[in-house]
Every structure is written in structure tokens, then in C-alpha cells.
């Protein structure tokens, strides 16, 4: 794989498929970085890539995501320490962008949660970590924020309302931040009924609603975390990411601080599936687009050393839904590699031969067009990658 900026079809701003290309499958990879957004486009072969960006240069782009209901509708979370949070929206596949609503006000008395030192501090909005568009309505989108809360917009991002039942969960005052902040980073919408949602917070755990966000339950039974006094407490677990396959929404996969976990009953009970992984610390986890029992993780050395084990960048794949894992190394650096892969920085496409993508804090974005068997960098020298999403276009 190679970057081909300067050759092949070029587009202004974000790439937009030309008319004659609209019948050809392709992919659009949305990359959020510490210093802007990048869009990587290719046809179905995923061999040659067009790279555009940086968009919003100089800003932290924690996440971008396209609507499944309208692939031309994209949303981006743009933030920075100086000037705060913005949400950008594109209605033309990224050709143009407009800032929409950026007011994220907690409902009612914000209350307090625990700080790192165990003291109570007021809830304070910092940034949007994750944007999750509705599967059916391009104007409806959910935002997971720091300090942990869930917001929803039903007007294309123009205005945001908190779903306060989550933060108002009785355990809320005991939630505490992980090292990255007290972030709501994962939002899974049940394709059978979006009133069913599962979210995850670092470091509180996983929560589920079955009534569109009015009420929530902690679903952390089976998790054990050495970093909290009661290792199997109802909440307090540092969940790094969760994923599910669209055809099996009750089967959830989790990369916890330590431990890779699985639930087959919508989170009612979890079991560890770390199996023969060389280390079960990590951030990302994702599921093959066509094989619900094929799961990917990137093991990271430990909680105090956020680099690949032994300097070898290895994706691990389980074809058995966990427990048995194989290292995937072809095309990935197997010496002197000391990057991290952050929690939202892995994605899969849904082409016939499923493509797997991930980005690193060293600025590389890798693709495997064959389900993980072989890998190649799409681009090597971006700013630190915060998130990777992919749209499969036809």
C-alpha cells in the first residue's frame, strides 16, 4: 500500500466520488488527530489512496463519523484547550463544513463525582469524545462527553440535550476519571431498536438503557478490576472500549483496562476471553463485518507502559469469539515500534473482503484489505491519531 497524494483523482477538500465512480465500491476513512482531521479515500481494492487534510488544522479532532442513513452527512468533534468545543457538520460528504451547536449544558444541578484523589468535584463539561449518528435518521446524533454524560441532538447538531438519567444514575457521585479524563467514549445503538443503547465510561463501567435513555442500569457483572477497592463492584471499572456486531447486538466485546471480556446477554454477565493473549491490556477492540465471532485487539504492554509488547506492533485476531488468539504481523513493524493505539482508533469496512483499519499515536494509519492477514500503511506521518472510522461507499 502506498500513499498517492498528487496522483490519481484529486478533489477539493474532502474527496467526493465522481459520477462514474458511484457504481464502484470504495471506502472513506475518517481520521481524527491531535492537529486536525484527515480523509483517506480508495476504491474497493484499497491499494491506492487519496489523502486530504488537515481539515480544521491545529485543533484536536477527537472523532468524526458519518451517518449510516446518509453517507454524505458527516459530523466532527473539534476541540482545543484554548477555545473549547465545536461540532462541525458536512452535508456533502466533507466537501464543505459548517459549525453547528456547541452548547453542552448538563440538566439541572450538575452535582459532583470523584476526582483522582477521592475528593468530590463538580461535573464540568470538557469535550466531546465520541459522536454516534442514529442508524436511521441523519439529523439525530448522540454525543459522549467528558465529564461523562450522554447528549442527543435531533436537529442535525444544532442543539443538544442531555439524557440526564445516565448521569443521574445512583452511582454517579462515585464515578471517577481514568487517566484520560472521565469520558463517555463508546455508544452502541441496537439496530433492532435504538431505544436500546449501551455506553461505556472510563472509569465507571458499562451502562444500558432500554427506554431511549430515560433510565439506565450498570451492566458490569463479571468484571474484576484490581485498581478499585472492591474488585467486582457494581461500578468503577475502567472500560476502554466496547464493540458489537450488527447481527448480534446482544453479544458485546470489551477491552477493559486489563482483560478482554465478552457478554452474550447484552451485558448482564461478562466473562473473560483474554485466553492466550500475550498481554490483555489495550484500548481498541472491534468485530469483523461479516464474521460475528472474529474479533480484533491490539495488545499493549501494560497500564504503565502504553506501547506494544517487545516493540512489535501486532494485531491479534480471534476467530472463535475470544480465548484463542493469533498474532497478525505481516506488514506491521516488528522491531523498535513504541506507539499506542487509542480506544477509538480501529474500524472495519463492510466490503466483501472485510478491511480492518487502525491508527497510532505515531501518526500511522494501517489497513488490512484481507481481514487482518496482511497490513500496509496508508499514511505514516500524521499527527497522533485519536480516532479512525470508515465509510463503505457504493
Amino acid at each position, binding site marked *: 500500500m502506498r500513499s498517492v497524494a498528487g496522483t490519481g483523482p484529486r478533489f477539493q477538500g474532502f474527496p467526493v466520488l465522481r459520477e462514474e465512480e458511484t457504481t464502484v465500491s470504495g471506502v472513506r476513512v475518517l481520521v481524527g488527530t491531535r492537529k486536525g482531521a484527515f480523509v483517506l479515500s480508495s476504491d474497493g481494492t484499497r491499494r491506492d489512496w487519496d489523502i486530504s487534510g488537515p481539515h480544521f488544522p491545529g485543533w484536536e479532532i477527537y472523532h468524526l463519523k458519518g451517518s449510516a442513513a446518509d453517507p454524505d452527512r458527516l459530523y466532527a468533534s473539534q476541540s482545543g484547550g484554548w477555545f473549547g468545543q465545536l461540532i462541525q457538520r458536512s452535508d456533502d460528504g466533507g466537501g464543505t463544513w459548517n*459549525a453547528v451547536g456547541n452548547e*453542552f449544558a448538563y440538566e439541572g444541578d450538575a452535582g459532583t463525582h470523584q476526582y483522582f484523589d477521592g475528593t468530590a468535584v463538580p461535573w464540568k463539561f470538557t469535550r466531546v469524545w465520541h459522536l454516534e449518528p442514529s442508524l436511521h435518521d441523519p439529523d439525530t446524533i448522540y454525543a459522549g462527553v467528558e465529564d461523562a454524560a450522554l447528549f442527543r441532538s435531533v436537529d442535525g447538531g444544532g442543539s443538544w440535550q442531555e439524557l440526564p438519567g445516565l448521569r443521574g444514575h445512583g452511582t454517579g457521585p462515585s464515578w471517577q476519571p481514568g487517566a484520560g479524563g472521565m469520558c463517555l467514549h463508546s455508544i452502541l445503538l441496537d439496530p433492532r431498536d435504538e431505544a436500546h443503547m449501551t455506553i461505556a465510561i472510563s472509569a465507571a463501567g458499562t451502562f444500558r438503557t432500554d427506554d431511549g435513555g430515560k433510565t439506565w442500569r450498570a451492566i458490569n457483572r463479571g468484571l474484576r478490576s484490581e485498581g478499585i477497592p472492591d474488585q467486582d463492584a457494581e461500578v468503577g471499572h475502567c472500560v476502554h472500549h466496547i464493540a458489537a456486531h450488527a447481527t448480534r447486538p446482544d453479544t458485546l466485546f470489551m477491552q477493559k483496562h486489563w482483560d478482554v471480556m465478552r457478554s452474550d446477554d447484552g451485558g448482564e454477565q461478562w466473562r473473560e476471553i483474554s485466553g492466550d493473549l500475550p498481554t490483555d491490556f489495550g484500548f481498541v477492540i472491534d468485530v469483523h463485518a461479516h464474521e460475528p465471532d472474529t474479533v480484533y485487539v491490539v495488545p499493549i504492554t501494560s497500564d504503565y507502559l502504553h506501547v506494544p509488547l517487545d516493540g512489535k506492533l501486532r494485531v491479534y485476531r480471534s476467530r472463535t469469539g475470544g480465548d484463542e488468539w493469533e498474532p497478525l504481523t505481516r506488514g506491521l513493524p516488528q522491531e523498535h515500534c513504541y506507539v499506542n493505539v487509542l480506544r477509538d482508533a480501529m474500524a472495519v469496512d463492510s466490503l466483501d473482503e472485510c478491511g480492518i483499519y487502525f491508527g497510532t499515536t505515531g501518526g500511522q494509519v494501517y489497513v488490512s484489505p484481507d481481514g487482518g492477514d496482511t497490513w500496509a500503511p496508508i499514511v505514516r506521518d500524521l499527527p497522533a491519531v485519536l480516532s479512525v472510522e470508515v465509510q463503505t461507499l457504493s
Partner: protein
Amino acid sequence: MTTHSVRVVLPAHLRVLGRVDGEVVLAVDGPVTQRSVLDALELRHPVLRGTIREHGTLRRRAFVRFFACERDLSHEPPDDPLPDAVASGAEPLLVVGAMAGG
């Protein structure tokens, strides 16, 4: 009520965001204060709401500074008059991103 023509210089990020080139010139009615200037700025460029002042409280964001006439006005009360030279348009109000790394 007197209308003042006030010049505001924005940092690069906010110029891009507000799609403005160079200085912004605002018509400010009544006393020229941080609040009245920023109110006029946000009215002209709604996209800047929340970027200089926090939503709700309208407090200056921590890493934003206000300079004018070679003085740091960041910690002045928002309803205090800005220097006459700013009110007259002789000098701009500078909105600055604090030197805090980057």
C-alpha cells in the same frame, strides 16, 4: 445613545472559524466594555459563542486573554469600561490565545 466603532483582533483559529480576514470592526452601543464588545462580536459571528467565553456563565475561557494599549485586561471586571483608545477605535482589543504550549 452613542455608537462606538470598536476594532477587535482575533487569533488565527477564531478568524478561520468566523471566516473573517483581518480585524473585525463592530458597532457597539453605549459603554464599551468587555461584555458589550463580546456581545456584539458574538451577535455578528454566532459561531464564536462558547469559544472566548463559556456558555452559560459567560466567563472568559481560562486560556483566552484580552490585551489593549499594551495592557492585560483579562482580569478586569467585564462591565468596566475599556480604555478610551479602544472605544474611539484608535486601538484594537486583542483577543489572544494564552501562551500555554501547543
